[in-house]
């Protein structure tokens, strides 16, 4: 295992040496049990203020109607679905880190998985607002659910939009279950460490009374692995289905088989960028550099590089399809709209943000330069937003020039979008204050003392990565 990992960064550990079982737990639990840092109040207050923009945006939308947004005919989908896809894509890195990297025995995932899973949940919460708000009459949202009703009308199950309802709600639920499963032993640790009786009681209830019995751990590891195994195809299905929202339509620029894989890669790309964007300031603020080391940032940069290349390949495919299809509408979409149309500049910005700039990540010096990496991660976040914008703007010019139109977001579109950052930020700050942000029991598994020698098993500590978690699955 160790040999297959990159030789270049083998010298950087995933956890700095010198930690024992109790010091790992102490350090992580201290954030929850200790006093609230002043910076937290400042950060939370700022996020909470921004959250009010969401409140204002949605209130005005409900009062006045969908016309306050820039959507029109032919561009019936605007900021709402751009931001929906953007947020939900960000969420996917959390599942990738917690589930897929677990199955691949990538031990470096351990210190960032809790954090990334929280990011998933909050990103999905932000994403979920958009389709609901876009209904115009969100109080009828239950029309989407398969409920018996007096009109004897059931959902249209042949529609990708209906599949989306199932995919996104399943995704949100399973992500929550996965997150909570991981938290149970850590809540127990806080319960045992807390001095205040009420803190003890609250975390005691949250831990469900967990006492770490060997058989309980056995079932627990089984559950954890099964949830990882279930989440892996789930996360792929979610963005595949999101891409079906576009690809199943007959519209030029959308009706492409490359969409599902290219959407999934883009989701992981943007998600990892968001994890880097969040992890860099958080590890500095909470002094977690021993747990979230440069090795993590380096690995995440490599994932961004790979998924970025996949996405770039997707852009190439789109252009090639337009050319090779010999279909005048596909070619027209690309030449008259996407690349050289009214919003052509954004297409080229997108190529710059997602295709060109991430190539810097080939350089080790860039991957290990925290400031540069942070800036690149923000550029990728912007690039991935532009990607969804560019895809959506295919609606502007379709088959008949007489039906062409143009889209521009309104003040309320932008307010609502900014507001979702407030929601995301507020939830993130609450998470960091009240929930252990790093999985302590999994971190304990990273130090060599956690492993036992079974009979006839003497390869010992050097291979502990392969023993890690669920060797008994």
């Amino acid at each position, binding site marked *: 295992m160790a040999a297959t990992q990159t030789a270049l960064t083998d010298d950087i550990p995933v956890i700095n040496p010198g930690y024992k079982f109790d010091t790992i*737990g*102490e350090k992580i639990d201290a954030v929850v049990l200790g006093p609230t840092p002043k910076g937290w109040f400042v950060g939370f207050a700022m996020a909470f203020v921004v959250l009010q923009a969401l409140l204002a945006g949605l209130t005005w939308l409900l009062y006045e109607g969908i016309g306050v947004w820039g959507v029109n005919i032919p561009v019936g989908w605007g900021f709402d679905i751009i931001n929906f896809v953007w947020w939900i894509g960000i969420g996917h890195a959390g599942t990738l880190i917690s589930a897929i990297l677990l199955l691949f025995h990538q031990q470096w995932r351990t210190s960032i998985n809790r954090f990334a899973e929280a990011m998933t949940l909050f990103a999905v919460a932000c994403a979920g607002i958009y389709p609901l708000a876009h209904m115009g009459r969100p109080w009828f949202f239950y029309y989407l659910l*398969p409920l018996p009703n007096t009109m*004897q*009308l*059931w959902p*249209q*199950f*042949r*529609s*990708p939009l*209906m*599949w989306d309802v*199932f*995919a996104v709600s*399943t995704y949100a639920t*399973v992500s929550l*279950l*996965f997150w*909570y*499963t991981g938290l149970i032993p850590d809540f127990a*640790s806080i*319960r*045992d*460490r807390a001095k205040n009786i009420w803190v003890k009681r609250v975390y*005691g*209830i949250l831990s*469900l*009374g*967990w*006492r*770490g*019995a*060997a*058989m*309980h*751990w*056995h*079932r*627990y*590891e*089984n*559950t954890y692995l099964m*949830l990882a195994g*279930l*989440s892996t*195809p*789930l996360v792929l*299905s979610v963005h595949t*289905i999101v891409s*079906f929202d576009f690809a199943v339509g007959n519209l030029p620029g959308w009706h492409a088989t490359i969409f599902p894989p290219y959407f999934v890669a883009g989701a992981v790309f943007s998600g990892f960028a968001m994890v880097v964007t969040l992890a860099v300031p958080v590890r500095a603020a909470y002094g977690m550099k021993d747990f979230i080391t440069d090795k993590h940032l380096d690995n995440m940069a490599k994932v961004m590089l790979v998924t970025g290349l996949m996405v770039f390949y997707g852009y190439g495919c789109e252009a090639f399809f337009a050319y090779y299809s010999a279909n005048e509408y596909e070619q027209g979409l690309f030449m008259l709209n996407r690349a050289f149309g009214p919003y052509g500049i954004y297409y080229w910005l997108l190529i710059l943000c997602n295709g060109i700039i991430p190539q810097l990540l080939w350089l080790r010096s860039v991957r290990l330069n925290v400031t540069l990496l942070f800036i690149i991660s923000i550029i990728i976040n912007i690039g991935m937003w532009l990607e969804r914008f560019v895809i959506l703007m295919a609606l502007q010019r379709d088959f008949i020039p007489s039906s062409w139109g143009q889209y521009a977001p309104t003040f309320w579109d932008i307010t609502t979008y900014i507001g979702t950052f407030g929601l995301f930020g507020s939830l993130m700050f609450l998470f960091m204050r009240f929930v252990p942000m790093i999985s302590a029991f*999994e971190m*304990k*598994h990273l130090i060599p*003392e*956690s*492993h*036992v020698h*079974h009979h006839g098993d003497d390869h010992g500590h050097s291979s502990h990565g392969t023993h890690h978690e669920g060797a*008994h699955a």
Partner: protein
Amino acid sequence: MSTKTEKPGLFGLLAEFETTQAVFDAANAVRKEGFTKVEAYSPFPVEGLWEAVGHKRTWLPVLVFIGGLTGATCAFFLQTLTAGAHPDSLDPLIDGTVSTLTGNMLSFNYRMNIAGRPFFSWPAFIPPIFELTILFSAFTALFGMLILNGYPLPHHPLFNNKKFERASSDRFFICIEATDPTFDREATERFLQGLKPLSVTEVPL
């Protein structure tokens, strides 16, 4: 061993260990000694400890598989029956004898003709089937684990022992419970002391 009456209100004897290796070896020794009402405790999963104590492999994966099948079945019939599939179109699937029942049920539903596609357009039903399979499996995995483990259980006699607070931090424990047929207050304590623990203490009920 003698059948001396246990001290009233004793849950068991708790031996404390400092390392994973120590608790693992001790668990093997306890199992070989013939104790059956034993449990080991650790702050994180220790490989093979459950086997060392003498537990059987969990059948949770079977439950999860059944949960997944249930999800798939529910999603298939939910869509097939409500999308307005006419009993005739289901005949290859369901024996004609059931048709009357489903026919009556379906007559209450508005049948949606979408672009002239068949009412029983099963390939389009696959994504929700897939999602509900995952959803039901995940619920079974978490709640199955919690139920089999007996959670939620906010209080447990072990929490009466002050030393057990470190079971979630950095100490490893083996508890031989008083209900074990071979449990004997003195003899069991002597046996546990022989395993070189940091301490052996009582767990009051």
